């Protein structure tokens, strides 16, 4: 690269922390939704609602949310691990 390598941005440590926080927030969101659906499942049992609808939804919805969060985490971790080992001239 001929141009001046972009210097390490001043707040790069802070940005990394922010990224970690955002990934954690996504997990909190997804786990919150899963917990919510489980809560509704218990509620539907208490109210003698149709069990099949509730169970069907939770079986589908919870794994979908977990997959989404897992994929994001996988990308986050994968991108960090996949950086040039030496860091070379880029950050």
């Amino acid at each position, binding site marked *: 690269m001929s141009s001046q390598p972009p210097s390490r941005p001043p707040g790069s440590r802070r*940005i990394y922390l922010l990224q970690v926080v955002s990934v954690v927030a996504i997990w909190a969101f997804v786990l919150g939704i899963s917990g919510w*659906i489980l809560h509704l499942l218990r509620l*539907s049992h208490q109210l003698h609602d149709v069990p099949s609808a509730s169970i069907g*939804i939770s079986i589908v919805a919870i794994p979908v949310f977990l997959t*989404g969060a897992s*994929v994001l985490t996988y*990308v986050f971790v*994968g*991108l960090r691990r*996949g950086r040039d080992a030496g860091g070379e001239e880029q950050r």
Partner: protein
Amino acid sequence: MSADKHEFVDGDLLRSIEQSGVGFRVATTVLGLTVLTAWVLFSRQILEGLGVTGLNQPVAWGFYIVNFVFFIGISHAGTLISAILRLSQAEWRRPITRMAEVITVVVLAIGAFHPVLDLGRPERALNIFTAGRLQSPLLWDVSSISAYFMASTVYLYIPMIPDIAILRDRGVRPRWLYSFLAWGWQGTPRQQAVLGRAVNIMMVLVIPIAVSVHTVISYIFAMTLQPGWHSTIFGPYFVVGAIFSGIAALLMVMIVLRRIFRLERYLKQIHFDYLSRLLLIMALLWFYFTFSEYLTAFFGHEPAEMRVFYYKVSGPYAPFFWGMVVCNFLVPVLILAFRRTRTIPGIFVASLTVVVGMWLERLNIVVPSLANPRSGLPTGYYLPSVVEWGMFAGGIATFILGFVLFARFFPLISLWEIQEGRELSVAETAARLETYLPDPPAAAPAEEASP
């Protein structure tokens, strides 16, 4: 580095980000004011009650539910189409996918808010979290739409990472935003493998979720016993309509943005041609579903069903019903079936009528069934109020505003996918084509002998 090449070749795609001008400020101001007006109207509705709408005793649902179904339908443009094109390795998808995915995320957020507008006590919407009942179709919607929103946001974001990294490396401001979002992307082979795998997982995941969303929305209606709603065909009918209106909206967005951001180099006649053929197929499919739906109702001749049927076909809703048929079937088929009229202005007109027609379809589904109750109440009528029109305008303004803001900060066309297309796809497609061809005759007997 490959980043240099982008800067050189596709720098014009970054113009809207690097040099935002007066146009951006004017657009955001105008749209922001429209959205603000809608919020003022909404606060008036909260303070005074839902009486400010045109809703009444038999017609308890109106514009808000119509627009809810309509906007969520439009949102199927994106993710679903982009995922299907990616999955089928359609090479012409490359400049289209990003825009499609943005439509999904923006419109989905707007659509998902509409049921809240419709609530008599919006502040109690959180009761859904504490006391929700999964057996109610509304809860199916809540879970399905939130899953779709999450999946499509992830699916929009992950393929954007390399482009964000380009912006970061060019030092575009705000720099912290791009460093934050780029997640340390450097384009190493290992990172590319991770990204590719993640995109593949999301694209497979997103298709069934997208189908489920509009199926479940149709279930809101189909699960009741009301004439005109209680129909098994509703699930696929809604999904087809959603994809139909979605493609039309995508085409409109593409044509408009092409004009504004001078994307003629990227969005070529061929892209519009292929997409409009898809639109033509969906128009025929839509007609087939509509025909089946109404013929079954008519042939059964159940009195309650027939009241709804005649209300639409020859009653007060006849203009909307026949307008829907003209907009969704006659006009697009006549325009798109002939190469002479399948020009970009022609496609724009066809897409516009399809979007209008699909909105009319939602109106035709929601209102007439409610206006003709079984109970013997006199036939109802529904006239939307200024508030409802204002909220509709606010929804559309939010959609445009979402696009304006996105275009201000992120490239509307996937830079790295275009580049990948240039560098790898030509050879890859040629190699793939080889595999489609029959094996040479000499090799055949030898292979037969060996096993």
